């Protein structure tokens, strides 16, 4: 037999060519995304990493993580030597060198110190937001998946929840600003002028004057924003629990709540944790809602100080710094090479924080999943 008689001889055809073209296109698209991701992460890491370290021992720039943003003072002397130092060091230096010549002094906002305040602020916002969102979200998901029927009203509710997930975050921001900052009820001794209405309870008043720009208002706004995601994902994971577990539990004489508690919720936990990951990564990165409801630029002290000095309520109603907003502020600074380390460092730290949150949740989920296999 000669090769020309091969009955299975490959034929060049359009179909083959198109198939190869298709695979090529899909592959190219996938690798393009990977390329973009690597480029972005790489650039942020490359630029941001130097801020984390310094040339002398202990080599790690601890100040960047432990101190608040500060003003950087910049000047040069008569010989043209350039000087720059944080505001707090400047006064000490000035006392030691009273005769130094200072020419062309100017101050760069937020270009010295570190990101401790924004870091803690974001962590607090995310933490309280997730507590609120998970407790409401899991309850609603349990109701939707286990208790309520399939009626028309219920599908309408589900549809609304799904649609809510697509609402732009600035809309949630305005909603939170209106409700939590300016209309939420508080107990006060003296009713503020801006109060919508108030009635007296004993010696104080219940006034609907809002919580102001505060940690609480920010957390609640973020929680409402992330609720649709949490509810939908939790409901899905509850529904994914095999019906046989519910039947078996009921057949053993459990009430509905016992069944949910013992035979459904534990097995939905990996899914709920996945929802938490989704929620955290979305919440931590949001800027618009916290800009309007939680942060203020003139905040300089650490959140814990309010807890120590004024108590729990003051802690929750203080405004906080937050990393995304801090990065936004830094980005709007006048272009100056001396501001760059803070900008790049803050961005990289933010990326690490969000990835850290996600990483913890993923580890937690995998551990739970390992225990629960069916």
């Amino acid at each position, binding site marked *: 037999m000669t090769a020309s008689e091969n009955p299975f001889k490959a034929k060049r055809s359009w179909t083959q060519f198109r198939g190869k073209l298709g695979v090529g296109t899909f592959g190219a698209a996938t690798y393009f995304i990977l390329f973009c991701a690597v480029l972005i992460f790489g650039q942020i890491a490359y630029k941001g990493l130097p801020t984390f370290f310094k040339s002398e021992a202990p080599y790690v720039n601890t100040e960047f993580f432990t101190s608040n943003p500060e003003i950087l003072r910049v000047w040069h002397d008569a010989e043209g030597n350039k000087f720059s130092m944080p505001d707090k060091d400047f006064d000490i230096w000035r006392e030691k060198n009273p005769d130094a010549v200072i020419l062309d002094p100017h101050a760069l906002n937020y270009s010295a110190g570190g990101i401790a305040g924004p870091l803690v602020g974001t962590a607090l916002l995310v933490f309280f937001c997730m507590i609120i969102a998970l407790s409401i979200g899991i309850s609603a998901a349990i109701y939707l998946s286990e208790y309520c029927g399939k009626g028309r009203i219920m599908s309408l509710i589900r549809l609304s929840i799904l649609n809510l997930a697509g609402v732009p975050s600035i809309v949630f921001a305005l909603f939170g600003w209106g409700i939590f900052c300016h209309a939420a009820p508080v107990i006060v001794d003296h009713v503020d002028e801006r109060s919508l209405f108030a009635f007296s309870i004993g010696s104080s008043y219940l006034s609907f004057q809002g919580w102001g720009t505060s940690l609480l208002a920010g957390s609640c706004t973020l929680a409402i924003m992330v609720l649709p995601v949490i509810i939908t994902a939790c409901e899905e994971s509850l529904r994914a629990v095999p019906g046989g577990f519910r039947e*078996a539990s009921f*057949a*053993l004489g459990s*009430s509905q709540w016992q069944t949910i508690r*013992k035979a459904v919720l534990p097995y939905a936990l990996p899914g709920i944790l996945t929802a938490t990951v989704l929620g955290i990564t979305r919440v931590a990165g949001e800027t618009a809602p916290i800009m309007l409801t939680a942060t203020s630029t003139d905040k300089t002290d650490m959140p814990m100080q309010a807890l120590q000095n004024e108590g729990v309520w003051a802690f929750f109603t203080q405004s906080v710094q937050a990393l995304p907003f801090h990065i936004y502020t830094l980005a709007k600074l006048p272009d100056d090479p001396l501001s760059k380390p803070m900008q790049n460092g803050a961005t990289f730290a933010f990326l690490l924080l969000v990835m850290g949150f996600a990483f913890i949740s993923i580890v937690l989920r995998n551990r739970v999943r390992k225990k629960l296999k*069916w």
Partner: protein
Amino acid sequence: MHDMSNELTTLPKATKKKKSSTVIEVDDIGFSYDHGKTETLKGISMTVPKNQVTALIGPSGCGKSTLLRCLNRMNDLIDTAKITRGAIRILGQDIHAADVDAIELRKQVGMVFQKYNPFPKSIYDNVAYGLRIQGVKKKSVLDEAVERSLKSAALWDEAKDRLKDSALGLSGGQQQRLCIARTIAVRPKVILMDEPCSALDPIATAKVEELMLELRRDFTIVIVTHSMQQASRISDNTAFFYLGELIEYGPTTQIFTNPSVKQTEDYISGRFG
């Protein structure tokens, strides 16, 4: 507390020849899955005698599983399901009476499902589940119940050294026997079995069947089965269903050797179904 044991003695004796009191009395029951528009069960009446195995047979969709699920009110969990007529009395009590709690009923009328469904917990925790639900916390009580139930389900020898291991590591047949043990642990009066062997291989099936004959001494068993051979092997009474109606009901030997209705004979002999 409603004393059921007293009522048991006042119940009329089963109409069949065997000297056995009636545990379940189904009286002209009608059942619908769609708010009563169409009836899945069309007036079923039968009695189930104590400490016997009663098999419900018939082609798919004949209503045998539906009837079984009516007996412990598992159908309550379906929103659109509805009893359209008649009554079911278990131990003399109408199970749809206003003061009957379906949860209490299910503690007395246990159920084993077609697809074995142990929880993804340890063997021990699976058997102890029902008792823990009832609030039993004492370890000695749980230990005793787990051992007793596993022994009754003929699983003790295979499982005693791995009680803390996941139930999902057991073979299919073992998992189904574990489900039976789990049901026995809450000491029900009646055990309902919904095609318990349909997912098992012949050897595992033989073990479960053997077990059922053992359990008959302590429990009343109602089993739905697709396999006529199985019904003939293990049951004392057989009920043949077709299209939501009870065609024939009687002692298994009679149903299989000398059925009085043509349809039953056709089904038994494999002419349809």
